[in-house]
């Protein structure tokens, strides 16, 4: 009887929210689950063990709201669960290899048995890990000379392996072994496995290039040879960038904060420069105020706004909050000139430079200056540029804060890797420089449009050191439109090419080889316009012109090129996966390729040509639009590629049989190109962006005080420099227009900021702050933007790169690009595409999903 009573109680409880049919269905599944998974029904209501719930195993099936395709979903998922190891299981397998706590489903899973069978492999793996860690801990060969000899010997051996020609079978065999090793060590922790992967990649890619150079140019046909050499040059460039990139990123220094002396009197005086030219005061204001809020002895902190725009409201504002205001007679040399001018006026020991939109956190100086006490030759400490608004890629592809953004790789890894070689360079903002060395090199460099990197290069040439502190200590706005983004990159590309010509890091004195490589790579990277374009056009050479630009049997090409691509991808995914997901670089570079092609080429030949252009920031985009101007070159490339693909498909069916494999290879290549180009289109589809000041999503407890001086607990969901979004737990008697105080806890102090309610939607309100004075504004900034830990944990270092899903993502983006284009060109197509999308969605929803990834079902409202 007891269980009947329990059943009735459950029925009633569920019935409160659902129809009879749903309730019956739900309870049926519930008891089936109990019977099948041997769990007790009462536990269901306690969320006891997730794994004992059907929802866990069938995340995409809502058992309360059955849908038509659910039987298919259930069947597919069941088969999948039985046959394949899930990611979770894999992770479990790695962390707790010896526990026997497995569920029924897991035990049914053949992978479970397979794992038992792979015990020896695991044993070897763990042995390998231990072996690596012990290898490094002790001196295994005492003599330095012998060590050097062995290393040289190994290097010679590697050179031999790179150059030895083999037939396709042997080549395939060798590369299978390499691949197996790379896959095996992929998940092992530590530097050695990573270095192994990188070395394998270098070997395989060099071998590929060696083979290309020595065997695959068809000198018989001059036309083919010419095109072939062109492609080969592009490939050599890609190889160079790959290898230099490895050197640059394989060992990020991961420098920590150095302590300042306890004696405050030893702390140096710092000048903060905030150069501005045409940015609105609303953008600059927060920066200046936040700068004044930095924790540093007040008598040794001088803040200057360097206004090249010579605007009276700026002057007024500076006087109002008591910071220096510097203008100059002319605007020669743009930002660099502006800074140099200020340098002659101020006298601080150190110069800190913030772009006018980079809001520094209060701890900036305390955290960075310490290193100058550690190293007297240190001339520069650079910190990452951090952006709290979405860059055009993030916004237009709606991946803000879910994928590492474009700058992440540079600021998260490359600069840190450069630091290892004492080659991290000045990036124009968020950095602190020592006055002495800066004056020694004649101030900020004015010869090129990337004055920052050039200045750092000059410092390094004089033997000064630089440091990179990989902690975001200031945050700013990303460029808001693709055209602006491209404009900025064009400037960087031109500037880097200029430095490469005028002050080539590979030549000249004062640099060690690590610095030369790092600088060279930073500059060569921007020359990718031509190679990238060549790669996009190369398959057309065969498909349209029938020119064998890689003169080798298709099997050999596959045997050499595919491992080269796979290893490069694996090693890059391991080395940079946390900072840039696989294949995203392709899209970033493709979008820029065409635009940096001309300026870099011009700069290489005429380095003095060209002028500084200011990156526009803080603007808005009123509506969605498609930037046709930007995408025109890509549309042309797409057109050509489509024609090539058409010819390829034609010759697949009607062409000569012996070319089948070659055609297939080229078709794969061109399809990939088409998807990447589609991605470029998708980025050019500008999403609307109307807020003048960007809102930063947070989740913080605050309280508010109404005009009637009642205090309520609330949640701050987002904030900007002038407003905030707040959610209440219960409905409050507020109306738009009401004045309230937003009370924020900051350390031990609390601050109340007067604000006015401007909007209301349910439990959520929007407020606009009305700061009575700059002190209040400063306090607000201290509590929000300038908190020392404001940007900590913002980065997504935890999202692990999965090359295959990354590829899928990129393909999806490419597809989206074409969809958008189709809708633009022929709006009537929209419903058709919508249908396709929905169909696709349905298909995807039917496919198996990883257990435990489903939404928590809230239908019970527990």
């Amino acid at each position, binding site marked *: 009887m007891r269980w009947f009573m329990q059943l009735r109680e459950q029925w009633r409880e569920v019935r409160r929210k659902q129809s009879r049919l749903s309730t019956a269905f739900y309870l049926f599944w519930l008891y089936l689950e109990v019977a099948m998974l041997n769990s007790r029904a009462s536990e269901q209501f306690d969320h006891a063990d997730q794994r004992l719930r059907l929802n866990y195993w069938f995340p995409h099936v809502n058992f309360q709201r059955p849908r038509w395709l659910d039987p298919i979903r259930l069947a597919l998922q069941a088969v999948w669960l039985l046959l394949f190891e899930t990611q979770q299981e894999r992770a479990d397998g790695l962390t707790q290899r010896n526990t026997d706590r497995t569920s029924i489903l897991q035990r049914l899973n053949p992978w479970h048995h397979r794992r038992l069978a792979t015990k020896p492999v695991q044993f070897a793996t763990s042995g390998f890990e231990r072996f690596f860690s012990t*290898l*490094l801990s002790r001196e295994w060969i005492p003599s330095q000379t012998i*060590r050097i000899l*062995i*290393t040289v*010997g*190994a*290097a010679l*051996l*590697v050179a*031999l*392996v790179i*150059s*030895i*020609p*083999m*037939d*396709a*079978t*042997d*080549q*395939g*065999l*060798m590369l299978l*072994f*390499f691949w197996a*090793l790379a896959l095996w060590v992929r998940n092992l922790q530590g*530097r*050695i496995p990573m*270095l*192994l992967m990188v*070395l*394998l990649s270098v*070997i395989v890619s060099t071998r590929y290039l060696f083979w290309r150079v020595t*065997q695959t140019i068809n000198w*018989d*046909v001059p036309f083919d040879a010419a095109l072939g050499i062109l492609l080969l040059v592009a490939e050599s460039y890609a190889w160079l960038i790959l290898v230099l990139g490895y050197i640059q990123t*394989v*060992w990020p*220094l991961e*420098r*920590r904060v150095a302590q300042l002396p306890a004696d405050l009197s030893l702390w140096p005086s710092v000048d903060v420069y905030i150069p501005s030219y045409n940015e609105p005061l609303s953008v600059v204001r927060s920066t200046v105020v936040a700068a004044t809020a930095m924790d540093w002895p007040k008598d040794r902190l001088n803040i200057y706004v360097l206004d090249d725009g010579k605007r009276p409201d700026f002057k007024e504002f500076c006087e109002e909050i008591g910071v220096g205001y510097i203008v100059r007679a002319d605007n020669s040399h743009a930002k660099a000139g502006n800074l140099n001018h200020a340098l002659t006026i101020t006298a601080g020991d150190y110069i800190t430079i913030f772009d006018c939109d980079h809001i520094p956190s209060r701890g900036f100086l305390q955290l960075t200056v310490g290193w100058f006490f*550690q*190293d*007297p030759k240190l001339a520069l400490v650079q910190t990452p540029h951090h952006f709290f608004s979405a860059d055009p890629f993030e916004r237009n592809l709606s991946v803000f804060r879910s994928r590492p953004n474009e700058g992440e790789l540079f600021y998260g890894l490359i600069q840190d890797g450069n*630091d*290892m070689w*004492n080659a991290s360079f000045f990036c124009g903002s968020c950095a602190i420089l020592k006055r002495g060395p800066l004056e020694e090199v004649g101030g900020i460099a004015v010869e090129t449009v990337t004055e920052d990197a050039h200045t750092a290069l000059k410092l390094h040439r004089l033997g000064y*050191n630089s440091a990179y502190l990989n902690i975001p200590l200031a945050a700013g706005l990303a460029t808001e439109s693709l055209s602006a983004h491209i404009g900025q990159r064009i400037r960087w590309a031109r500037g880097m090419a200029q430095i490469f010509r005028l002050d080539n890091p590979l030549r000249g004195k004062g640099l060690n080889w690590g610095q030369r490589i790092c600088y060279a790579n930073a500059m060569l990277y921007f020359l990718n316009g031509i190679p990238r374009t060549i790669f996009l056009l190369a398959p057309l050479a065969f498909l349209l012109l029938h020119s064998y630009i890689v*003169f*080798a*049997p298709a*099997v*050999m090409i596959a*045997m050499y090129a595919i491992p080269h691509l796979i290893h490069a991808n694996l090693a890059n995914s391991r080395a940079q996966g946390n900072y840039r997901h696989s294949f995203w670089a392709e899209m970033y570079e493709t979008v820029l390729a065409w635009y940096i092609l001309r300026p870099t080429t011009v700069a290489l030949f005429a380095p003095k040509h060209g002028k500084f252009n200011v990156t526009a920031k803080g603007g808005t985009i009123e509506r969605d639009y498609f930037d046709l101007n930007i995408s025109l070159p890509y549309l042309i490339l797409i057109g050509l590629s489509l024609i090539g693909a058409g010819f390829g498909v034609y010759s697949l069916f009607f062409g000569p049989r012996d070319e089948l494999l070659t055609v297939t290879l080229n078709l794969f290549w061109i399809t990939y190109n088409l998807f990447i180009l589609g991605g470029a289109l998708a980025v050019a589809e500008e999403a609307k962006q109307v807020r003048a000041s960007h809102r930063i999503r947070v989740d913080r407890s605050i309280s508010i005080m109404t005009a009637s001086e009642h205090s309520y607990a609330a949640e701050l969901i987002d904030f900007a420099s002038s407003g905030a979004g707040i959610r209440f737990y219960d409905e409050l008697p507020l109306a738009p227009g009401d004045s309230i105080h937003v009370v924020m806890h900051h350390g031990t102090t609390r601050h109340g900021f007067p604000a006015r309610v401007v909007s209301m939607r349910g439990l959520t309100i929007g407020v606009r702050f009305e700061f009575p004075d700059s002190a209040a504004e400063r306090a607000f900034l201290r509590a929000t933007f300038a908190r020392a830990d404001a940007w900590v944990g913002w980065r997504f270092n935890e999202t692990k790169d999965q090359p295959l899903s990354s590829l899928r993502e990129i393909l999806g983006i490419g597809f989206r690009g074409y969809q958008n284009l189709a809708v633009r060109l022929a709006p009537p197509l929209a419903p058709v595409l919508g249908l396709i999308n929905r169909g696709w969605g349905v298909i995807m929803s039917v496919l198996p999903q990883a257990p435990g990834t489903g939404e928590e079902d809230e239908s019970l409202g527990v």
Partner: protein
Amino acid sequence: MNHWVCKQASTFAWVMLTALLLGSSVGPVTAQERQMENELSAVERFRPVNELPQWTERYAVGTMTSQAPLRISGVNSQMTIGFGGRFDRVVTGATLRLNYQTSPAIIDVVTQVRVLLNNEVTGVIPLRANDAGTNQSVTLRLDPRLFAQYNELRFELLSEVNVGQCTSASPSAWFEILRNSELQLEYQQLKVADELAYFPEPWFDNNDFGSASLQFILPPQPELKETEALGVMASYFGMLADWRELKIEVLRMRLDEPEWDEDWRLRWPRQHAIVMLTNEERPWALRNYPQVATPQVEIIDNPAYPTYKLLVLAAPDAATLRDATATFVTGNRGLSGSSATINPMPLEPREPYAAPRWISIDQPVRFADLVDHPSELERSASNRSPIQLELRLPPDLFTWQQYGIPIDLRFRYTPPIVRDESRMLVSVNNEFIKGFTMTEAGMENAEERVRVPLIDGGLFADNNVQIPSFKLGAINQLQFEFSFGSVSDACRVMPLQNARGAIDGNSLIDLRGYDHYIALPDVHLFAKTGFPFSKYDDLSRTRIVVPEMLTDDIVQTLLSIVAKISAATGYPATQLTVSTVADIEPSADHDYLIVGSTTLKEWLERFGDDALQAQLQGHALSGQDNLLYQPDLALQNSGPSAAVVGFQSPFSTQHSVIAITATTDSYLERVRAVFNDASSTDQFSGFMAVLTPARVDSYDTIQPYYVGSLSWWKRFTYHLAQYPMVVTLLALFAVLILALSIVRIFQRRAQQRVVKK
């Protein structure tokens, strides 16, 4: 010994002679045999010997052409069979007996086969549909006056079949000649003038497509120098014979007067023969030949059978004779008259790989240089057999990691009126390489670069092919086939009559830039190309080793092999050196060719058998011990067998020894037969080929040695690449070490960076 045999068994001599004569005649068929038997009856010796013989020969049509089947049809309506005629005989009567079958699809009245000899109609065969499906036979008499030195027998089918309401040429109207059809020719031997201007006729006739045969008359105990002279002469004829079967016979003449008076005549060859004389040693029949002070060559009547000619090379002594022969074979052009004196000229040794029949690796070779006559590069609608180019490559070309031999191919053709099935197909050794469509766009001179592919490089390619890794062997056929489409209108399909296609003689094949490097021993290469001896085509770096006692078998084998090598190179072995084991001074510059089982035994006793043992290891060869080491013991117990075996020279790692041995010397005949038969030498491979009466067994080379020159780096990588697993493991090991070193270096550096001061 020979003398003794003759004396004891005169009947044996009869049989021998019969066999010799039969063996020497061209295209032996039974009728001739009967006739010869009659001629050799006891009465024969009293008949006047200068009578010009007449005889009949029968040729099976199937053996006269490589074409198969012998079929013509409505769309491919002509077939030509070519055959040569010798300079020293004339055809007095000819009968063609055709056995054939026809298609049931033909229309009676209209359909007929015309038979043409040298473009004149000599017969017509009307065809009846009713006769279809049964063997038909017809005998045609051919006018003997139409025969020339080169003859073409042509069959033309005029046919139509019913297609709906039309009649049309069609492949279904066919006419097929059965292979047993016979061409019967009656010959009359002619007496040839004593004229050196015709040389090498009548000893060798280029128009004779049958086998060539040579008779040498030897002194009873030839000196080594005389053997060399014979070898040089044999190699000259070998060079001329080229692909033809060349039978070499030697006959020992006694120097003294025979006991019964006709005997000497019976033992003379009853055909054109060659004799080499010194002033001391003369066969009895030539005892009166004048002594010579300077070497001379003369054509005289065969003293026994004046119908035939005897080439006499006379010199004061053996050494002069040898040099004179070498001079004669290199410079016999422009001679005339019945005799000429020879000034022995010292000949410089030739460069390696200079063999005229091998494709030059110093410069691109024009196709025109690969054929005898430019017309061979041209084809028409009526002659669609593929254009064949013979490519003989230096056998030791190192083709590893090469993608193919480039050919700049130019060809012309009559453009088809509409785009149709007209194509030009390129094949190598019957393996299809590439096809070109003949377009109507007026492409009269297409230029394409083709590459003759090499065998390796395929992912799943069978990897047991050692070098040379060509789809090519050392001898290859490059084939170009023009296939012309047929014009058709509503009702008629007509074979094109005016279509022409030609490969431009200026097309180039380019073999520059290849190294020479090859794994030996390889008896296949030896059998096919004479390698390694043929590397120097005058055999200047070859020592032929013979036993003290030169039996007929040894000499014949030696001459056959030398002739075969010269056939492969196209140059006579003017620097030939023959010696005995005892005389050998070990030389690191020479390859050794050992002839005879006792020679091999002596060689192994003197120089050791390590190199041979190295090859034999790993093979279960218990049965062949006798063959290779103890030839005497094998005589009684086992049946005969012979072997061609190669191993490394004991004097130099770069040189080889090839031994031709047999359980008994008489069984060396089997070796000669095999070397004359291309399909048998095809089965040669590895380091040894053992010839038993039943078949050819080859033994793979397990321990090869490599000869040739390769940069040390190429050599190193080539040999290393044979072991991909080793390379892989080495690479992984090296990577591990490098990774550890780099980690150490980087770790220290990173520490320096952050713990400053």
